């Protein structure tokens, strides 16, 4: 057995031999790339010296302890380099190809035999990193002893991956142990943090996490931003559930139980700045300008983050990472607020949508389509929005002293959720706006057709969606139905009262001294008026459009039901009088069949060729 002194001497020699500040050879090679024996010898030497250091009193200033103290420093400097070197050789960004969007349970096995092409079609989901293929192929080719990537599951959604092969982890732990025991924890943490942080950075690049400032984001067009949000959501899930979780696990594997919270310190060094950078994007979105078209993407973002919160809490559970948890929670509530604001904004925009140009033919206004689509989407999102929207809409004349603003009596809609109330309010507001727009039509009849079309469209949309129907309620639906029927009736009156007036009986019979019979002049006038009016109405209203087939037919039938019998009866009673006069064809222009056919032209949106109507009688 060697004397303790001898052992110490040998140990020091080993350490000195590997001092890279004095030996060329020491610079040229790495201990941990040599054989196991070499590594063990070195570690043992360090332990020996450390042991000696602990047994002497600190204030000994004899030469021996000074030399030993010096040896420790040399050893620690060397170990620091070794540590860094091992870390750097395993600093490739995370494998993303095998991760799906939903991070469903997957078994990732060794990829050594996969073909190149598989990597070249790299999943565009995550965007393209600059050194994409180089890294993944590099990993394959390096021929490490254990490239198996197995995934662990610590919660139902977190997937930890092995970032560093286990034998390297073992080496790292051996080194960390010595450095920490010798009091060199700070250096250890710093080296670890700096290399792993740049690995996280390159993973970020690969996942497409961008470095955008708040100012940049304010300036982006919505379509661009929309796409970026989607990409961010996918990336964030991977970052929290896989990347950060894996880094945490790695810290635990290397540093756990080595004292002084080294594992937590290393983890923070590694991920704090990247985490902040990641969440800054979501934060920027949450404070950007509120415009209604962003609502649904904001809700997506809100939901994604809300979903991630438990994982964020799990990964960042230590005290030192509290600020990250706080930031994430704040962002979620800001997004909720933004969503609420956007809904209000939308309601206001619908109310004040200012376009005055009447839609040709009285058909469906683009605003109606837009609003109904929007409402349908809202009902799709009703689970999230239902939770976020807790108070009903601000209704009534709050915004104007003018009494002609829409109003909603909440009592009419008792028991409806706040979100449902908002939807009903939006429809009320839409109708109000449409009423205003209808006034720009010079022809009242057209205005009524317009209202009828649009409200009917609203009704159809509601009927077509069970969620929407359930939220709005059949009561209000009935009311809306009544409204468009009412508009149809008003149209009837506006157009046809005048026309049918020509076919009335009064005023045609003369009771006079010379003849009791029909005034031929008056009769001729009547026929002429009727023809003129009908022709006018026919020509004009053929150009109008009722897009819904059933509604169109219903209205045509309704017109026929009043027109045809009246004309038939009129013709029946008075045609002989005309036919016995001159040029009857000037007065009886239409047969009953002609009228029946003509009615079918109404609201088709096509011009009629007048001359094709000419028939000899």
């Amino acid at each position, binding site marked *: 057995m060697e004397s303790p002194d001898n052992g110490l001497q040998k140990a020091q020699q080993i350490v000195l031999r590997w001092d*890279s500040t004095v030996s060329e050879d020491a610079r040229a090679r790495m201990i941990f790339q040599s054989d196991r024996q070499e590594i063990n010898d070195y570690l043992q030497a360090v332990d020996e010296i450390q042991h000696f250091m602990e047994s002497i009193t600190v204030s000994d200033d004899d030469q021996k302890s000074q030399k030993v103290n010096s040896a420790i420093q040399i050893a620690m400097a060397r170990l620091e380099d070794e540590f860094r070197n091992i870390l750097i050789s395993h600093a490739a960004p995370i494998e993303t190809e095998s991760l799906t969007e939903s991070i469903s349970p997957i078994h990732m096995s060794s990829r050594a035999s996969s073909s190149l092409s598989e990597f070249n079609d790299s999943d565009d989901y995550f965007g393209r990193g600059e050194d994409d293929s180089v890294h993944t192929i590099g990993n394959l080719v390096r021929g490490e002893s254990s490239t198996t990537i197995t995934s662990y599951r610590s919660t139902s959604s977190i997937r930890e991956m092995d970032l560093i092969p286990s034998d390297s982890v073992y080496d790292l732990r051996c080194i960390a142990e010595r450095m920490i025991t010798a009091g060199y924890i700070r250096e250890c943490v710093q080296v670890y943090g700096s290399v792993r942080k740049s690995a996280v950075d390159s993973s970020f690049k690969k996942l497409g996490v961008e470095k955008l*400032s708040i100012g940049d984001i304010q300036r982006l067009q919505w379509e661009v931003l929309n796409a970026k949000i989607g990409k961010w959501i996918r990336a964030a899930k991977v970052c929290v559930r896989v990347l950060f979780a894996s880094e945490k696990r790695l810290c635990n594997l290397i540093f756990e139980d080595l004292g002084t919270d080294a594992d937590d310190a290393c983890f923070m060094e590694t991920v704090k700045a990247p985490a902040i950078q990641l969440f800054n994007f979501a934060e920027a979105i949450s404070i950007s300008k509120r415009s209604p078209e962003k609502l649904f993407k904001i809700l997506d973002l809100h939901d994604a983050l809300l979903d991630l919160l438990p994982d964020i809490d799990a990964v960042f559970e230590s005290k030192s990472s509290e600020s990250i948890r706080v930031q994430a929670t704040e962002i979620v509530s800001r997004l909720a607020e933004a969503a609420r604001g956007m809904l209000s904004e939308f309601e206001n925009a619908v109310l004040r949508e200012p376009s005055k140009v009447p839609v040709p033919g009285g058909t469906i206004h683009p605003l109606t389509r837009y609003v109904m689509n929007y409402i349908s989407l809202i009902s799709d999102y009703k689970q999230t929005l239902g939770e976020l929207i807790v108070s009903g809409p601000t209704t009534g004349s709050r915004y104007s002293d003018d009494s002609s603003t829409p109003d909603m009596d909440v009592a009419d809609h008792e028991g409806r959720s706040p979100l449902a109330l908002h939807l009903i309010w939006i429809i009320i507001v839409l109708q109000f706006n449409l009423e205003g727009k209808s006034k720009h039509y010079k022809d009242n009849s057209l205005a009524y057709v317009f209202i009828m079309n649009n409200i009917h469209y609203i009704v159809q949309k509601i009927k077509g969606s069970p969620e929407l129907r359930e939220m709005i309620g059949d009561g209000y639906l009935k009311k809306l139905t009544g409204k468009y029927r009412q508009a149809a009736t008003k149209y009837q009156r506006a157009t046809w009262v005048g026309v049918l007036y020509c076919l009335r009986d009064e005023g045609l019979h003369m009771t006079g001294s010379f003849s009791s019979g029909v005034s031929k002049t008056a009769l001729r006038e009547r026929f002429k008026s009727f023809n003129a009016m009908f022709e006018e109405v026919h020509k004009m209203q053929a150009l109008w459009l009722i897009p819904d087939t059933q509604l169109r037919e219903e209205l045509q039938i309704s017109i026929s039901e009043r027109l045809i019998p009246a004309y038939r009866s009129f013709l029946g009673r008075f045609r002989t009088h005309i036919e016995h006069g001159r040029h009857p064809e000037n007065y009886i222009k239409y047969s009953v069949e002609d009228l029946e056919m003509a009615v079918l032209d109404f609201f088709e949106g096509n011009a009629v060729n007048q001359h094709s109507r000419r028939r000899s009688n």
Partner: protein
Amino acid sequence: MPPTDNQGSFLNRISIRRNQVAYEHEIEDLEQFQKHVADRLSELIHPPEDTPAADPPETTLSIAWFRKLLDIFLCCEAEFKTVVIMGRDANSFLKSPLDRLIPEHLDRSVKALDICNAITQGIELLQHWRKLAQIAVDSLQQKPIGEGHVKRAKKALDTLLSSITIDDKENHHHTGKSTPAPTKSNNHATIGNFKSLSYPFARSWSAAKQIQAMSSNLATPRGGEPTGLVVPVYLMSSVLVFVMWSMVAAIPCQERAGLGAHLQLSKQFSWAQPMIGLQEKIGEEWKKKEKKGRSGLLVETQKLEKLGQNLVEFADGFVFPVEGEKAEEVTEMVVEMAEICRIMEEGLVALDMQVRELFSRIVRGRAETLDVLDQVNKMTTPVPY
């Protein structure tokens, strides 16, 4: 007696009088606001009279000074919001010149938010420097100081000093790489250490440019404006720009090359005087130090750098054992460095929280201002029928 005319004009007169009184109150509020700001800002230069003699005034551009500055800003912001934005007739916001000035102020707020984020990263870097200094302190506090201790301290200090003095441009060059090259041990000073300090924004983002954009359209109000709101808005913007500018000058953050040493602040306002004085002083310092790179003017950083250099000198000439006068000198320096580390450790945590608070407040203030503008827009835009 006919109830019409006489009663009508009587009521009119009362409401005019009431409006007038309200108006006078508003003007008074605005003037109070300016006075408060002036008072608080001058505390930065001369501590208030009731401060106990034992408390020295904060050194300009120290961490403690910044904490005070941010505190002052947060108070001003709160008062600004109450007095200028909320609870007043906001119709004037839609008229010239406020219809331009308020959006400009909001735009500055957005830039300030980005700067806050950059400063947060800068504070991380300062903590990183502190940790390096701490290594040196710990080693050199061992008694007696041996060769091992000295080498360890020197290694840490070398890293610290090169991090402090490295140029911004050079650092950008490093952060571009994503693959660290396999290293030999003597490359340790470049790889890993600087890459860990990668910046949060794209390379084109520059704190200096942001500040310049914020200050370029800050025009002195010409006066004679009826609402009395233009000056307070100008005040708030000026204070905002000043605070951001000082932070960027002192704390390392992305791309400060081109930071102007000068801010346009009008001398005519009492509250501007302290800022002008401070900004001249800081501007001078900036011009001197600009060439040296990224370290920034923060007092603690300067001290760390100086002490670090001295201790490296000591380390280079180290011979065991250290005795007598030399030992005393070194002990003194180490004690001083230890104190700075302590100040930094506590102070930076608190400062970081203040910056986050600042961020939050600016976000909220901006949202509330936008809300007010929205409301006013709704009220004045008729429902178009």
